[in-house]
């Protein structure tokens, strides 16, 4: 009998044109929580898909409890007791929670699905996870965190011996992450082995006993979590040292640029007021679903607010469409790069120039030469790792995609820049670069609103922090007075000012 419940040796996986994994190895001890880290594009997700049988490796061997196994598809892995919770919830929005949990291993009697039993079983699992929703709820109506919980319930329902969590906390708020930690601890106690992928160091320190690092499709090393420093780990991941993660420059705060007064939209937010000054970075935080994104989307004309006023440089403005906001210099970098920020199948150049194309067009006709020059200039300015401006946005890593989104914003005349979760799913190396760009923009005198759920990011970058809860602004803290605990308290001030308790 082997020491390891799962062992992979010499795994190589080739996609057309790319070696996604190059001779990597991995060992998982029974009952341990093992973190798998590395920058985006390092091959973690591909590696997971090899373990779960979604991809088949060209070379290499895999041993489960010492026995060599060869998965032909996801079903084989499932049968062998391996379950994965993927980065993007792989749920079926139109189906119920119970169905999502039991998809693929439904309870069947005489060829008929046993709905009643499945619903009951699902409810039991959900209770174990302290979930606050029913198994007959439709998946699409749940929040991201709740969906994540369903995914975990799904992994549990297969009685898996090995559970793989691929960035489960990326979409979760602090509080929800705590909930997840609790669940993972509980699983560990029950003897389940867990592979945990995350960009967050706090996740790793909190949960894992060992950590394996991948870089550029290669295996770098496996370390004991207690025996490695933060800096060493970053070095292993990035291949170089990062001196300062939050390069917040000292900027003299200028005049008021944007002021929002008594902004309301039924069902999303109510009576939100704030202002931003030139050179200032204002952090807007709160739990997911607190209405942060909705507020700025309404400011930018993407949705319509029911009431409220917006002032730009002291003048009241009326914005009805996104293009009006852009004309006035209010630029939004949307939260979801792939769905809202970029056209993934388009070349980088065209993505960058999409909002501004008519500005340098000659009587409605595109000036392609100028367009190419401009996009090259902007993409180089934010230091995008790209070969040419014609390669599709989908070929870039998350961090570089975010840089393209920034370049797209830079192509416009900016006064106020609103960045919605700019580092979500971005690896640590690229994060630092994005913070640097942010600092740079502030120095140039733009007013910046930074929406983020990541506490260190908010604390590290913002001059002033606005906290929202349940559609209301619950507090405002200066850089000096802000602490993690203080923000959390405001962010969870559920029902304190609201009329009646939810539910």
């Amino acid at each position: 009998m082997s020491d390891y419940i799962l062992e992979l040796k010499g795994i190589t996986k080739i996609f057309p044109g790319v070696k996604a994994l190059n001779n990597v190895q991995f060992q998982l001890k029974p009952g341990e929580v093992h973190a798998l880290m590395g920058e985006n594009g390092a091959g973690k997700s591909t590696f997971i898909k090899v373990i779960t049988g979604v991809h088949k490796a060209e070379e290499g061997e895999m041993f489960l409890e010492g026995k060599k196994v060869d998965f032909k598809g996801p079903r084989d892995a499932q049968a062998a007791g391996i379950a994965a919770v993927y980065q993007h919830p792989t749920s079926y929005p139109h189906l119920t929670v119970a169905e999502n949990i039991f998809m693929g291993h439904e309870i069947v009697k005489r060829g008929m699905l046993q709905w009643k039993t499945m619903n009951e079983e699902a409810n039991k699992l959900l209770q174990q996870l302290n979930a606050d929703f029913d198994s007959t709820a439709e998946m699409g109506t749940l929040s991201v965190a709740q969906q994540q919980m369903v995914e975990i319930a799904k992994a549990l329902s297969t009685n898996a011996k090995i559970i793989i969590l691929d960035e489960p906390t990326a979409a979760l708020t602090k509080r929800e992450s705590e909930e997840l930690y609790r669940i993972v601890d509980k699983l560990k106690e029950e003897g389940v082995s867990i592979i945990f992928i995350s960009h967050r160091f706090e996740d790793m320190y909190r949960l894992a006993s060992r950590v394996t690092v991948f870089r550029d499709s290669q295996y770098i090393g496996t370390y004991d979590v207690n025996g490695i420093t933060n800096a060493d780990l970053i070095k292993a991941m990035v291949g170089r040292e990062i001196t300062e993660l939050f390069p917040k420059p000292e900027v003299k705060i200028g005049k008021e640029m944007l002021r929002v007064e008594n902004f309301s939209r039924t069902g999303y937010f109510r009576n939100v007021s704030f202002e931003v000054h030139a050179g200032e970075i204002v952090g807007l935080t709160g739990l997911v679903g607190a209405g942060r994104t909705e507020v700025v989307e309404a400011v930018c004309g993407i949705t319509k607010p029911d009431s409220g006023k917006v002032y730009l440089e002291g003048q009241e403005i009326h914005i009805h469409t996104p293009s009006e906001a852009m004309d006035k210099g209010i630029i939004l970098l949307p939260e979801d790069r792939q769905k809202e920020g970029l056209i993934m199948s388009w070349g980088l150049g065209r993505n960058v120039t999409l909002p501004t194309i008519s500005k340098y067009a000659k009587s409605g006709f595109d000036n392609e030469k100028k367009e190419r020059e401009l996009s090259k200039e902007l993409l180089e300015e934010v230091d995008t790792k790209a070969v040419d401006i014609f390669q599709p946005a989908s070929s870039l890593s998350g961090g570089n995609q975010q840089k393209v989104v920034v370049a797209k914003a830079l192509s416009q005349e900016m006064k106020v820049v609103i960045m919605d979760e700019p580092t979500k799913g971005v690896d640590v190396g690229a994060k630092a670069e994005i913070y640097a760009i942010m600092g740079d923009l502030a120095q140039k005198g733009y007013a910046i609103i930074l929406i983020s759920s990541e506490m260190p990011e908010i604390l590290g970058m913002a001059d002033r922090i606005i906290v929202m809860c349940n559609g209301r602004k619950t507090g405002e803290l200066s850089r000096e007075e802000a602490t993690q605990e203080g923000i959390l308290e405001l962010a969870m001030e559920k029902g304190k000012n609201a009329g009646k308790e939810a539910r």
Partner: protein
Amino acid sequence: MAGKSGRSINNVPEAPLKKMILSWEGILVVLLVLVNIFCAFYSEFYNLSSLLRQMPIYLAEVFLLLPMAYILVLGEIDISVGSIVCLTATMSCIVCNTGAPFIVVILTALAVGAVCGAVNGFILTRFTELPPMIVTLATQIIFRGIAEVVLGSGGSISATNTEGLILLTGKVGQVPYILFLLVVLAVIFAVVLGKSTFGRRVYAIGTNRLTAHYSGVHVQKIRFIIYTVMGVCSGICGLFLLSSSFGANTTTGKGFEMDAIAMAVFGGISSTGGKGNLAGGIISAFIIVCLRVGLGQRNVHAQVILLILGVLLICAVALPNIIGQARRAVKR
């Protein structure tokens, strides 16, 4: 700027000529030549003058292809155009019979078409949840239904004042006016789609509607404009049909929407949106016209011609995919 590595990003495009030859449009041009050679051998009557003489009635449908390409690039579909053609032909015929100046007849056709298109556009932009297919299916029934009501129990109207209509069927030498008009419009539509900022935005909407909206593209406005233009072009089509038959009836333009969509798809414009260009669509329109004329001149059964077109259509879309899959399989 911080973290500047001085990395340079290439912004010189590939040689356009090479790209052009290997593209679907390149293949289509070759196919157009082949079809013409084939037809010339197949039918003893197939020559330029017979082609030019027979072309106008087919070309009327090509007017529908032009805006239909935009709609397909948007990732949408309009199956009401055949009915708009019917309604415009009917209304302009009525106006024509009152003895109104011909320019009024033309304006009527365009205006009626524009109104019909705008109705589609209005419903679709107002109720964005509704799929275009079902809305235009309903208006397809409605527009033809209005024509049926207007035409009354005879179901047919005939032009009594044909002076202006005859003008439309005129020719320069052997080349009919309609071909000139079509070429001019085709160039305009193709250039606007391929080279203008408007066209770029249409592709943006068709590829990722949400990103387009976030990037300041007036998604609903553009959709409304395109559906209205679709109506206007249906008006032009209706006008030429009116001039070729000196009348209209309840079956005028029936099934034209499918013909227009088939031409566009054969030309490489994907029905899923964001892909293809009008050059391909127009070449494929001429391939289909030539093939139909050539086969028709040997009196091939109409259903057999449709069968051939059906096979061609599926092959045109399926073969590149199958070849691509095979190539990938071989590489592995």
